């Protein structure tokens, strides 16, 4: 009996937490379709989440694309398949690395700042103050951020994919002796619409996850500075793990079979 209780308690705890989070997600999305809409908050979120994340996502993609080209060239040389560099860089960036690394950088940059901001608001009674001023915290804080992330992260990912391919192109043409025109031609010929759609869908999902985790842990923050610290840390870790898990699931859905 004690054995069963020892298993049961964490399982029940996990189920309860999953349930709470699911309700949170549903409530956040429902607020996106019911007025009032806080356009100013949405505008701020677009700027903070989308625009200001460009440098981070761009740099990450550029170096990844470059490194990928070098690796594929070195690896491919073992069975004289050096020529596939453009195709593999394109597929690797667009299908996997662009969305995943973009998503992880968004988790580092956006999830943490959302969680810290909302947790601080909670700890300093600003969330209570919102409620007394007849403003729903989910509608005012969570909905605009989650919507902005869902809309902008796919765009960021698309830009990241392009910059990553460009990184591979630069390395291949300057260091590995590829012909620039052929490289681009190969890339364009090889990529399919399906790849690009996948990339964007992944971007939207990862953006939503990143913002949702920040909002969820922020709103459920404990008291004091320690509460804010713990909320921030947990939100980033949870977002990163969930993004990787979702990536696996989406890859399974899009490419298996």
């Amino acid at each position: 009996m004690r054995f069963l209780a020892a298993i049961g308690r964490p399982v029940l705890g996990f189920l309860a937490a999953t349930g709470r989070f699911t309700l949170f997600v549903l409530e956040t999305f429902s607020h996106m379709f019911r007025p009032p809409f806080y356009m100013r908050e949405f505008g701020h979120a677009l700027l903070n989440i989308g625009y200001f994340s460009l440098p981070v996502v761009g740099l990450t993609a550029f170096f990844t694309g470059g490194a990928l080209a070098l690796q594929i060239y070195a690896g491919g040389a073992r069975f004289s398949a050096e020529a596939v560099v453009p195709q593999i860089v394109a597929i690797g960036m667009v299908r996997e690395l662009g969305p995943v690394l973009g998503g992880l950088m968004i988790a580092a940059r956006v999830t943490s700042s959302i969680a810290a901001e909302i947790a601080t608001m909670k700890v300093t009674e600003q969330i209570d103050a919102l409620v007394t001023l007849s403003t729903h915290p989910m509608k005012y804080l969570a909905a605009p951020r989650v919507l902005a992330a869902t809309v902008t992260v796919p765009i960021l990912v698309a830009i990241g994919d392009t910059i990553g391919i460009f990184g591979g192109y630069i390395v291949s043409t300057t260091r590995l002796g590829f012909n620039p025109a052929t490289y681009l031609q190969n890339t364009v010929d090889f990529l399919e619409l399906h790849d690009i759609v996948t990339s964007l869908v992944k971007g939207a999902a990862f953006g939503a996850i990143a913002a949702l985790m920040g909002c969820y842990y922020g709103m459920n923050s404990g008291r004091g500075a320690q509460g804010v610290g713990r909320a921030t840390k947990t939100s980033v870790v949870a977002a990163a793990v969930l993004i990787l898990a979702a990536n696996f699931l989406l890859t399974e859905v899009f490419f298996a079979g």
Partner: protein
Amino acid sequence: MTETPMIQIEGVEKAFGSKEVLRGVNLAVPRGESMVIIGGSGTGKSVLLKCVLGLIHPDTGVIKVDGEDVERAERDAFLARFGMLFQGAALFDSLPVWQNVAFRLLRGALKRPKTEAREIAIEKLRRVGLTPDVADLFPAELSGGMQKRVGLARAIAAEPEIIFFDEPTTGLDPIMAGVINDLIREIVVEMGATAMTITHDMTSVRAIADDVAMLHGGKIRWAGPVAQMDDSGDPYLTQFITGSAEGPIEAVR
């Protein structure tokens, strides 16, 4: 008194984990009166106000506002009747001062044009003794006392029927405290609002209160008109008023 009280608190209990903060609070605040709640720090005064606002849900007990159960009221209409000054001011630090004050007037049911909202905000700031040049500053640029007064201006901006002040004069110099006391008195008399104020400052109590209630040990220890406070014969209340270390209230809590 036959009229239903504006706020009726019956048998409210609230515990956080194993810590029982409220253990059966009963209190009635008549319409248009100013009730002041006193009591040592950490006795649950702020928690009690938050229970009335529905920000914290009591474990047991019923709270009625204007005869309506707080837990069942339609939230938007309910909250529209309230103004609240939080103990730590709770200003939104992403918004400039005037937008904090005019928060309700910039969105939702009470929305008005921006210029009009700003004018109202500046007028309310003046009432709490702040000049118009603070309007465009951010809360982080203000001293604690100034933040408190901005919070007060925000609480009264939409002219609510019921106003809660959580330690309105803590952190203010005596002159500014006097200004705020007068203001609270004025709001109750002129606007006919019902007020609940938490304070430790006995000067404030005498300036603001119609009635006084003392919270101690999770219950209302004494409640009555302010005039009867000094000769209540209650050793707890007397000790609190005189601020003596000797008495039934332990100095170490």
